[in-house]
């Protein structure tokens, strides 16, 4: 049971580190790690507490809670869509350095 929190901690640490980088692609990877951490938190809130194989267990007592799984599924879909958009944004403008690009500015009108 200690593996899940430790994994979340490692993922959050890696994600936070990558978010502080200048390159948009690294930030995208950071966000991906963070959203995986969020998914694991969701799973930890419901699945692991009751976890057994859903085979040969009559009744719903031994089966994992399906609601967090539905949450995670929805969250994965949303993150996937935004990741694609962010990768596109990192291509637009030629340079993916987030520190430089915002100053290209007003003259291009």
């Amino acid at each position, binding site marked *: 049971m200690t593996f899940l929190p430790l994994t979340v901690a490692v993922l959050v640490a890696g994600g936070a580190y990558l*978010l502080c980088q200048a390159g*948009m692609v690294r*930030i995208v990877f950071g*966000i991906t790690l*963070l*959203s995986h*951490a*969020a998914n694991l*938190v*969701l799973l*930890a*809130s*419901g699945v692991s507490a009751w976890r057994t194989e859903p085979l040969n267990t009559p009744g719903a007592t031994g089966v994992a809670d399906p*609601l*967090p799984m539905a*949450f995670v599924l*929805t*969250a994965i879909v*949303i*993150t996937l*869509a*935004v990741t694609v*958009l*962010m990768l596109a*944004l*990192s291509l*637009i*403008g030629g340079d993916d350095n*987030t520190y430089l*690009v*915002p*100053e*290209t*500015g*007003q003259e*291009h*009108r």
Partner: protein
Amino acid sequence: MTDSLLPLFVVVPLAMAALGVVLPARAMIPLMVGAPLLTAAGGLGLLVAHAEAGNEVIATQVGAFVPGIAIPLVSDTLAALMLTVTGLTSAACVAFSAISGEARLRFFPTLVLMLTAGVNGALLTGDLFNLFVFIEVMLLPSYALIAMTGTWRRLGIGRLFVVVNLLTSTILLIGVGLVYGVAGSVNIGVLADADADDPRFVLAVSVVLLALAIKAGVVPMHGWLPRAYPATSGSVMALFSALHTKVALYAIFRIHQVVLDGAEPYLTVLLTLVVLTMVVGSYGSLGEKMIRRLLSWQMVAGVGYILLGLAIGTQLGLAAGLFYLSHHILVMGALLLASAAIEHTYRSNQFTRLSGLMRREPLLATIVALAMLSLVGFPPSSGFFGKVGILRAAADLDGVELVVVMTAVVVASLGTLLAGLRLWRGVFWGPPLEDLPSGDREPHVSLDTRAPLRTVLPSAVLLVVSLGVFLAPGPVWDVTVRAADGLLDSTAYAAEVTAP
């Protein structure tokens, strides 16, 4: 009967958005303006229904699933009020984008319709996870909208906007997961009965509130807002100003009151944040040299006043906060649309490139002057009663809190006044545009140009509504008092959300 119609608030705009794939943008424009108007009309109808039935709550479980698994949509006076105000303001914003020609961009109407669907869903949902989903439905089209219109800065700023919002959504998701882990449900009706004194539960809900506070732009998590919003175009910024931060504020009101039962121990934290937000926001404008950047700081300041009502937490405080919320949506919409009209005509919103518009554009000057006075809290518009309500509610605090809050409101109002003077001196006073050195003038703008009346109309409509609220504040105040009652006594809400 009415309850089964609630999903239409989400379904109708989404279905209209789907039409955007087959119809050309030109044919979509009436739908794009119509959907927010329909939302406002529906919200008004719900307000009347709630008033007649003695503040009754209307709820439905979509698809008649078991409560707790189904998607619950709930409407009470607060949600109906928000639907009306946001619907009206976003209709004015998209009407401007149709007039200025932005709406002819491919998929612009579709994105706006999806945004409307997400906002309506987020206002009506009675479930924290669905709140997350609807906030994402609201944000995804916004990512595209912010990168679609405006200056070239938007491409870089779009990255900032996406990253900040996605990071915040991840925090929100983690918070929802923690709430589920502690309470075993994310249905707001069930959570209303949960033990609000359990520190684990309060901590989990606080993670949700933290994420919403970032989305609302509460100081010290406000930095993204004045950087991101001004980079997009005027009408899209007005749309975002009316919807995004306000939906987050609505959710903070709902969760803090219904789930945490008002959470007294957090009063000091909330008051500190609120005071900081008011003061930092209103003085942040002083360094800016562009109309919309100046206004974006005033948006931050407004968040402070609205949450001050929540922090006070009495019936009067909540009602005053909600009144200020409605007023702020209308007046910020009027100001941003007026600046969008200036930008549409003169191709710039920089102080150095504009001058002497007072004589050139008397109507726009009147709108901006009245709306800025409204933000400060002077008559004759809704801002006066907004400030009166906030100050009257703050008078119920005691000791140090009373002194700090009163001082902060007065000091922050002075900051807003200074910002208004700065805007007035930069754009409306000064020599006529003809006398500016030609290097300072925006090229391609002819000296005969005047803002066409049709570009001024949307902001004029919003300002007229605000003036109407000043002349007859009674009905609006009654509605906000009923909404505050619904927040203070959440038993009816909880019972309806969990009823099959």
